[in-house]
């Protein structure tokens, strides 16, 4: 069966609408990117609550900080490379240090930016955001989880970073599922042989990999670690206790993302052999999404290979 595909970023405008209709003083700040980030859907109903500050990411974050200081429920969104890259110092000084509940939504992250090439393909955003104290970092796997996480973020009392890609991805969750929260994870498939921690587009790849492994009698446990920070530590540790080995898969540099977060967790509490499926020490480049996924090894078959390797390394 081929799952339906939708673009998680399409959830952005919808989530803003839902939060505003619940009576929250939602304001959306964007940098001349509302049609790309889908803030435009919100703008139709709440034109006064949309602020386009033009092509100026530093000013976007500063404006968002000021709006939050005055009590607004602020979402700020633009291309991940520039929002996080150029706005990083503003995010650190004027959002993270004062702990303002600004929702920072990076779109077009990962190699999903495709033909736009290396400058647009943000592969280090999780690393940059994860190191900031009190910053929640969320990476939804599909449209439904994106909608739930974006809408739920309206209740946050601390800064939140939400990573979205450009392209459509297979649905993982049923419509209306809203059982998502910072610090939680979802076990999508149970198994006692190998743990697969994944996020974003790699969740559906991990599920495909688990199906392949099952044919070889290898039972993989797939955990959607959409909350990269704080990590769903108990869920992950509970799983590696049983499996004794782990694969982490993400559309991000191997350095600093989900894989290293999981490695740090397991190293501290229950060390197990581990492999990462991620982008190793290379920037992106132009190409189709599919070509790039193949070239950088962000595929189900890479997860299968990594799972087999860690299985042979485990000691039980």
């Amino acid at each position, binding site marked *: 069966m081929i799952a339906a595909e939708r673009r998680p970023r399409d959830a952005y405008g919808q989530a803003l609408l839902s939060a505003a209709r619940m009576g929250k003083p939602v*304001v959306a700040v964007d940098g001349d990117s509302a049609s790309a980030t889908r803030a435009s859907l919100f703008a139709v109903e709440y034109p*006064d609550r949309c*602020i386009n*500050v*033009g092509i*100026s990411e*530093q*000013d976007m*974050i*500063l*404006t*968002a*900080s*000021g*709006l*939050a*200081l*005055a*009590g*607004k429920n602020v979402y700020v969104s633009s291309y991940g490379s520039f929002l996080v890259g150029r706005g990083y*110092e*503003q995010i650190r*000084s*004027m959002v993270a*240090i*004062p*702990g303002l509940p600004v929702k920072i939504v990076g779109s077009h992250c990962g190699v999903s930016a495709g033909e736009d090439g290396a400058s647009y393909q943000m592969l280090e955003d999780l690393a940059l955001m994860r190191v900031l104290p009190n910053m929640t970092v969320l990476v939804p796997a599909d449209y439904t989880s994106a909608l739930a996480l974006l809408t739920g973020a309206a209740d946050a009392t601390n800064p939140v970073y939400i990573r979205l890609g450009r392209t459509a991805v297979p649905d993982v969750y049923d419509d209306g599922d809203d059982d998502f929260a910072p610090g939680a994870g979802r076990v999508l498939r149970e198994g006692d042989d190998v743990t697969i921690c994944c996020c974003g587009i790699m969740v559906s790849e991990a599920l495909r990999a688990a199906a392949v492994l099952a044919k070889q009698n290898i039972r993989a446990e797939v955990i959607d670690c959409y909350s990269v920070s704080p990590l769903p530590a108990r869920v992950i540790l509970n799983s590696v206790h049983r499996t004794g080995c782990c694969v982490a898969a993400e559309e991000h540099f191997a350095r600093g993302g989900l894989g290293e977060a999981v490695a740090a967790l397991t190293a501290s509490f229950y060390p197990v052999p581990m492999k990462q499926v991620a982008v190793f020490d290379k920037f992106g480049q132009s190409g189709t999404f599919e070509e790039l996924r193949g070239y950088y090894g962000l595929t189900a078959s890479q997860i299968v290979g990594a799972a087999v390797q860690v299985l042979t390394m485990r000691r039980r």
Partner: protein
Amino acid sequence: MTHSVQELSERALAVRRDVVRMLGLARSGLLASSLSIVDILVWLYWGVLDVRPGEPEWEGRDRFVLGKGHGCPALYSVLANRGFFPREELWSYRRLGAMLQTYPEVRRTPGIDAPGGSLGQGLGVANGLALALRSSDPAPSVVCLVGDGELQEGAMWESALTAAHHGLDSLTLIVDRNGRQMEGATEDIKSLEPVADKFIAFGWTVAECDGHDFSSLRSGYGELAGAVGRPRCLIARTKLGKGISFLEEDPSGGRMVLDRNSTDRALEELAGEEDGQ
């Protein structure tokens, strides 16, 4: 609230003495940068801003954003003297666990409306505050005080465009035009002049004044009152180290750390002025 020039001068003198004591006790910090903005802050907090020291989070209050975070000792003394918190807090400035961190922190210090410390960011935050508050009736004023050196930051000019584009006339930017930055004169390092023309070209209404003269501050601010639909910029000419002769004279004074002798000398000068009035 109108205070006589005499009253404001006395308050400013008291604030200068506080600032010298604070930095003398801390044994570090930029004294001269605080001294150039003392008169501006005294004029704002005793003559312009509608605030309630007993109710610091009052929603209708005017907001103040300190862009040049290194002038924070002056702001802390002003807030303490205005009644936001006990003056005793001033003496633990910069110490571990103190309420008064080196740079302004919201939710930690009563009366602080915006975080600070990183240069060039205050105006953008002030824009956000003005945008959020402009639909209130009456719309609170938002005042942002920046140093002239931080006009070299790019983000400042992104924010200057935003303020003009959105017609934020409840916003006033005050530039502490002391002409100096860490390594020398602004005009030697990266020229800023003509500052007024730059803001005018960006769509602002601009006035200039003497930042150490309360009547001049008042009339400069008054000139801006007619700026409907445009943000307001008040360029206040000031002197780094104002009030302490050896700091005013020594161009590198901005970096000086006060030892006990110079603290005593500074306090003597400030006491002398007090006697003379």
